């Protein structure tokens, strides 16, 4: 029982990371109907930049966070400008899928050449001794991940709902053409949503890094599973991705423990296929009415 509880705790922490990345997918999908297939690489770059700041330059972990965030913003804007905008402009059907994948490959390769191919240990900013919660062990870092992820998502939601810039984002989400006619620079809004999306991803990277190892290859599978979360929860539902993330995270840690760590990625992906077969709009999403 204690072990199960412990698995659930770390599953929730992992699930929150998925939720944050999935949240990033939602942001760009809302404004532009596109998403960054290199989202996992954005996370990986965030973690590695954080590692360099903390480990090599000796910056305090908490001070490194905003710097990594800034880096994420720039990286996301870059992806949008090189990868997405030109592809949308030439009306290529799946150009942006290919170009964001390509950028992801390039980022991964560059990271391999800068930070090497080996996985690196990220020093934990909090004590590594576990605490007892309801009789099971929890790492303080796991609690930080959960809190950090929630704060991150709430901050972006607050921004979208309460500020005038956020309202421009929401307007673009509702009707891109109408927003454009109202004088909103929708191009800028889309760039901004990508920047924000990468910001959340790189932030997630720095959060998860002390719990796992950091390396150039850490992003790909995380990005894919976060997509599964986005689909399971629904691409339009904030609640959905948190629930979806937790389901997936717990499924994964328990599978890893009770069956085999080799299979730990399988339940999430199978769940993805199942949800799509049964309810394509996701557990919490609304299905759209097609117009003829």
């Amino acid at each position, binding site marked *: 029982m204690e072990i199960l509880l412990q698995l659930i705790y770390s599953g929730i922490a992992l699930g929150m990371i998925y939720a944050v990345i999935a949240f990033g997918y939602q942001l760009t*999908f809302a404004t532009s109907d*596109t*998403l960054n*297939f290199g989202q996992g690489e954005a996370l990986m770059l965030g973690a590695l930049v954080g590692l360099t700041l903390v480990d090599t330059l000796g910056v305090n972990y908490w001070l490194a966070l905003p710097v990594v965030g800034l880096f994420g913003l720039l990286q996301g804007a870059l992806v949008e400008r*090189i*990868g997405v905008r*030109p*592809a949308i402009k*030439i009306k*290529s*059907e*799946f*150009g942006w*899928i*290919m*170009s964001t*994948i*390509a*950028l*992801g*490959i*390039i980022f*991964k*390769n*560059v990271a*391999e*050449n800068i930070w090497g191919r080996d996985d690196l240990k990220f020093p934990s900013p909090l004590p590594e001794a576990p605490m007892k919660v309801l009789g099971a062990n929890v790492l303080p870092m796991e609690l930080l991940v959960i809190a950090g992820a929630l704060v991150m998502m709430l901050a972006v939601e607050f921004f979208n709902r309460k500020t005038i810039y956020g309202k421009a984002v929401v307007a673009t989400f509702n009707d891109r053409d109408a927003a454009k006619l109202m004088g909103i620079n929708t191009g800028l809004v889309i760039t901004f949503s990508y920047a924000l999306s990468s910001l959340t991803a790189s932030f997630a990277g720095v959060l998860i890094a002390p719990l796992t190892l950091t390396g150039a290859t850490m992003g*790909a*599978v995380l990005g*894919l599973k976060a*997509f*599964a979360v986005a*689909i399971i929860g629904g691409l339009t539902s904030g609640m959905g991705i948190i629930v979806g993330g937790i389901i997936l995270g717990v499924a994964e840690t328990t599978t890893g423990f009770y069956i*085999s760590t*080799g*299979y730990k*990625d*399988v339940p999430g*992906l*199978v769940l*993805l*296929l*199942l949800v*799509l*077969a049964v309810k*394509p709009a996701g557990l919490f999403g609304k299905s759209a*009415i*097609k117009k*003829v």
Partner: protein
Amino acid sequence: MNRKYVFASVIAFVLLALVPVFTHNPYYIHLVETIMIYAILLFGLDIVVGYTGQVSLGHAGLFGIGAYTAGVLFLKLGAPFWVIVPASIAVTAVFGALLALPALRVSGPYLAMVTMAFGTIIQILINEMTFLTEGPMGLKIPKPTVAGYKFDEQSFYWVVTALLALSLLVVHRVLRSQLGRAFEALRGSPVASDCMGVSVYKYKVYAFVISAGFAGLAGCLYAYSEQYISPNTYNNELTVMFLLAVIMGGRKTRMGSMLGATIIVLLPKLLDDLEMFRMVASVLAVLMLIGAIIGIARKMTTVQTMAVPVVGTAALAMFAFWLESITDWRLSIFGLMILFVVYYLQDGIVGFVRSLLSHRSRGAQMSHVAHAVDSSADPIIRAAKNGGDDVLVAKEVLMQFGGLKAINQVDLRIKRGTIHGLIGPNGSGKSTMMNVLTGIYVPTAGSIEFEGRSVVGRTSSDIALSGIARTFQNVQLFGEMTALQNVQVGLHHTFHSNFVDVALNTSRYAQEDKSATARAEGLLAFVGLADLAEEQARNLPYGKQRLLEIARALALDPQLLLLDEPAAGLTAPDIKELVSIIRKIRDHGITVILIEHHMDMVMSICDTVSVLDFGQKIAEGQPADVQANEKVIEAYLGGTAT
């Protein structure tokens, strides 16, 4: 297939088969062999990517399944070559169906991610199921032995060549058949495909299954060719590589697939050699610069548009000289290539060359269309009179979107052999009614009976096949297909031949194809488009597109034809012609429901007119009575009820 094309293909294959005679270097033989194996896979991938327009990132996984089916069957059962090849194809095709069933409920980015997830699962399973696959250790499989003869590198090369030729033939036949047209149609307009009786879902799955079959064949041959397989080969990079090959070579062409295969096999070899890469990058940069200068001088392009590629290639060349070892940066260069292809080579190399050539020889090609239409045969099949007086009876139909009642308790009774007008102001629910009748929407309440059978809850394609054809308010043609092919899609239901008939070109298929072509030409002639049969639908003027939609709908041999504003955007003489066409359709016993805003047209040809306003039926009767009805006048002109 024209004769020149066949001749060129035969020559090419003879040359290909002669490679081992000219060079005995096993390295080169193996290289060409790999290219051919990839080409087989790309033929299949192109069906999904090029024709149905779906992105698949799962083909490396399917390739792996093919290879491992071969490996496992050999290792565990010692199965012979002639069992293993069909088994690999069949097993992979089954997996293709498994992938397609959930994945194809979604499209675009969803599908891409889902197929990627599928590929990842396959890789994990191959890695983990050690009792079957030996896991990360990999499998060894020797070259096959058939009837006591053991194939060596050279003779196996010929086996691959033969299978490539066979694959090419099969793919070619499938894609020009009704199956290929169905694949292309569901890319052009999914809604219209469904309404032509071509079930989008079914044919997407079909396309995936065929595509997976080719991937399985390729995987099996790959296992024999490499003689060693391990899970890490079938990763996501390979899948992206395949996709790049299809796009870079050129979609919807077999030549493009073969070019693409050549590029992705040779590319890593090229990138292994730094000197070579430096040279290629420099030459590329110089060519790009020269091209840009010429382009700008001739005012064909601007400095701004050329700046990015020129600077990009120059930077690549400098990068090449700065590098000390290239192997570490291989993936980055590969990524840059993808970007380049996506932005500057969208139609692939074949498409690019074609557009260069057609630039010069346009006009010469346009004049060859003069089909001899057999005027004695009537292209429209007379609708059979089965059942009672009413073709369609709708009772208390309610269609609700959230709180909005788009159709509110409407009754409709359509008499056989009449032209029934459906009019009403904009937003009164006319098109919604069409969508309900054709199964695009499922009504919230009420019953609809067509020929005594309920249509509620049935799929659009099923309803279409039972005899309701339609046109669309905003034209839904298959843009990249010719006018003739558009009509042939409508004739899809006349084909009973299956994949095997098509692949073997049996007489049944040949017969059906011949009669369908003749009927399609007849139908085009009926609406006056015979001269434009070979023109792509998207290039037709708007009025002609509407006529083409009618021809396509007639191809379904409908009992009931729904025309949604057929006269919109037509000139006065065109409308006259349209009226006579509609009358002729009615004279064939086909019942017509006509939505139209041209009142004089409605009043002149309709036998009965129903008027909708705000989702409710406010009047019905003879045209003259309806015209005089106060409620109708009020709905159209406004005013207060007294």
